[in-house]
C-alpha cells in the first residue's frame, strides 16, 4: 500500500476508535449514574417508610388505644416538648455537658489506651502484670465504682468523666494491643535490619502499620463514650446536668414527653458522633 493510503487508514481507524471511546464512556457513565441513584434510593426510602409506619402505629395507639400517657405519650406531646425545650435551651445546655464529659473521657482514655496497648503487645512482663487488672476493672459495673469516686472527688462532672473513661478504656486497649500484635513480623525485622529501633521504629513503622486497628479502637471508643457519659450521669451521686441526668429528672417528675424528647436528642447526638468518627478515618487516610 502507498504511504498516503496507510495514513488515511490510520486516520480513519483513529476516528472510528475515538467515536467508540466517546460512546462507551457515556454508556458506562449512565450505568454508574443509575446504580448510584438506586443505591441512594435504597438507603433512604426503606428506612423512611419504616419510620413512617412506626410513627403511624405510635400515633394510632395513643389516640385510639387505651395506653396511659405515663407509659407512652402521644407523638404531639413529644414533639411539643422537643420544640419548647430546644427553644429554651435546656437540650442544648444538657447536651453540651454530656458532650464535654464524653469527649474528655474519650481523650483521657486514648492517652492511656494507646501506650498501654503498645506495652501489652510489646512487653510480656507488662502484659502479664496489667492484663488481669484491666479485665477485672472492666467487669466491675460503673454503679459500684461511682460512690467510691464520688467520696474521693465530690460533686462535679469530673466523676462522670472518669467513669466515662473507665467504660471506654478496656475495648480500646484490647483493640490497640491487637493492632500492634498483628503487624507482619517480617516488616519489623526488615526495618530492624535497616537500623530502626525505639522511637523511630514506633513512629515510622509500627504505628502506621497498626493504624487500621488503632482507628477501629478510636471509633469504638468515640461511639461508646456517649454511653459512658450517660451511664456516668445515671450512677454518679449528685448529678443533675447532662442528658442522662435529664432522663432521670423527667422520670422522677413523671414527664414522659420530656423523656422521649431527650431520647430523640440522644439519638441525634449518637449519629453526630458516628459521623465524626468517620472523619478520623478520612484524616488517617489523608496522612498515611
Amino acid at each position, binding site marked *: 500500500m502507498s504511504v498516503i493510503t496507510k495514513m488515511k487508514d490510520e486516520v480513519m481507524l483513529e476516528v472510528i476508535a475515538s467515536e467508540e471511546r466517546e460512546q462507551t464512556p457515556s454508556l458506562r457513565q449512565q450505568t454508574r449514574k443509575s446504580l448510584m441513584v438506586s443505591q441512594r434510593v435504597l438507603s433512604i426510602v426503606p428506612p423512611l417508610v419504616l419510620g413512617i409506619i412506626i410513627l403511624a402505629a405510635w400515633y394510632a395507639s395513643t389516640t385510639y388505644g387505651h395506653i396511659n400517657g405515663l407509659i407512652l405519650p402521644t407523638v404531639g406531646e413529644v414533639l411539643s416538648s422537643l420544640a419548647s425545650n430546644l427553644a429554651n435551651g435546656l437540650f442544648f445546655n444538657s447536651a453540651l455537658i454530656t458532650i464535654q464529659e464524653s469527649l474528655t473521657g474519650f481523650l483521657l482514655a486514648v492517652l492511656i489506651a494507646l501506650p498501654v496497648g503498645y506495652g501489652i503487645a510489646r512487653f510480656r512482663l507488662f502484659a502479664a502484670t496489667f492484663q488481669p487488672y484491666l479485665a477485672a476493672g472492666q467487669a466491675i459495673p460503673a454503679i459500684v465504682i461511682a460512690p467510691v469516686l464520688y467520696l474521693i472527688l465530690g460533686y462535679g462532672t469530673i466523676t462522670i468523666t472518669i467513669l466515662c473513661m473507665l467504660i471506654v478504656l478496656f475495648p480500646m486497649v484490647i483493640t490497640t494491643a491487637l493492632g500492634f500484635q498483628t503487624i507482619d513480623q517480617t516488616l519489623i525485622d526488615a526495618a530492624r535490619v535497616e537500623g530502626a529501633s525505639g522511637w523511630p521504629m514506633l513512629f515510622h513503622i509500627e504505628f502506621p502499620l497498626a493504624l487500621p486497628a488503632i482507628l477501629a479502637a478510636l471509633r469504638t471508643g468515640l461511639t461508646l463514650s456517649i454511653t459512658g457519659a450517660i451511664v456516668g450521669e445515671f450512677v454518679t451521686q449528685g448529678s443533675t446536668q447532662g442528658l442522662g441526668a435529664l432522663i432521670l*429528672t423527667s422520670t422522677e417528675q413523671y414527664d414522659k414527653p420530656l423523656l422521649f424528647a431527650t431520647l430523640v436528642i440522644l439519638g441525634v447526638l449518637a449519629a453526630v458522633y458516628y459521623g465524626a468518627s468517620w472523619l478520623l478515618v478520612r484524616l488517617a487516610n489523608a496522612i498515611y
Partner: protein
Amino acid sequence: MLYRLSRSFLLSSFMLIALLACILSGCGSTGTGNNTSTSSTSSNLTNVSIAFGYIPDIQFSPFYVAQSKGYYRAAGLNVTFHHGFVTDLIGSMVVGHDTFVMASGDEVLVARNKNLPVVDVSTIYQRYPVSIIVPADSSIHTLADLKGHTIGEPGPFGATHVGLLALLYHAHLSLSDVHVQTIGFTQVTALLTHRVDAVVGYSNNEPLQLQKEGMVVRTFDVSDYQPLVSNGIITTENTLQSKPQVVKAFVQATLKGLRDVIANPQAAVQTSASYIPGMDQSKALSVLQATIPVWQGDGHVALGVNDSATWQSMTQFLVASQIIPQPADLSKAYTNQFVS
C-alpha cells in the same frame, strides 16, 4: 464522584469541629456541679453548702426563696445548693462534701449509731410525709387489711421504707405478712396498672400524680399512726461546735424563707422557677399547697422546732423494730438552740 466525596467530608468535618468546640468551651468551666449560688467576690461571706439528695424541686422552695431574696447573703453566707440523688447523704457530709444536708430524724439516729457525729439543728417538715396509697375502691380499709397484699416501695432504704415499717409496726404486722416489692420510683405507674395493691410514697407527690391520671386514691399517712421526725437541716457536731454562728445564720435565714413561702405560695413558685429547670408552674403550685401542711404539722410545734416527744416516740419505734439499739443520749441528736 469527587464532588460527592467532598460533601460528606465537609459534613463529617463540621460535626467533628462542632464536637471539639463543645469540649473547648467547657475547658474554662471548673465543672463544680449545679452551682446556683450568687456569685460573690466579697471575701467576708462564709462559703457553705447544703445537699438535698434529690433533683431540684418545689419542696426546696424555702431555700430557693431565702437565696433569691438575699437572706443568706444578709446573714453573711454564700450558699451553694447540691441537688441530685446521693445514696449516703450524711456520710458524704461527714467526709466534707457539704456543710449541711437535708435528712430525716431516723436517718440521723441510724447515722449516730454508726458513729457518724451528726446533729439535727432544725426540723423543717413537722409531719412525716410518707403514706401508703391504695386505690379508692381497694379492699384495704385499715392497716391490718394490708396482710397478704403486695406493696410496692422504691427500695429497702430511705424514708419510704422506714414509713412502711412504722405503719406495719402499728398494725402489728411484720414484713413477712405482706409482699413488699422494690419498684424504684415507679409508684404511680405501678398502682395505675394494678401491678401492686398498694404503694409507699409521699403524701405531697404520688397521690396528686395519681389523681391527675384519673385514679382516686386513699392514703394511710404515717404521721396519723406513728410520730416520726421528718426532714430537717442536719450538720456535723464539728460544724456546730466550731461555727455555731454560721449554723444559726443558715437556720434563721432558711426559716425566714419558709415563712415567706407559707405566706405567699404563688410568689414562691415564681421565685423557684429559675432553680428548677423544666418546672410546670401549675403542678408545682399544687405540690407546694400539699406540702405546706406537712411543714406546719398540727401547729402545736413552731416552725423549725425539734419536738422532743416526737423524737422519743420515734426512738421507741426504731428500737422496738430493731433498726437501732437504744441510743446512749438521745438529746445529743438534736437541738433547738438555733431556731429561736
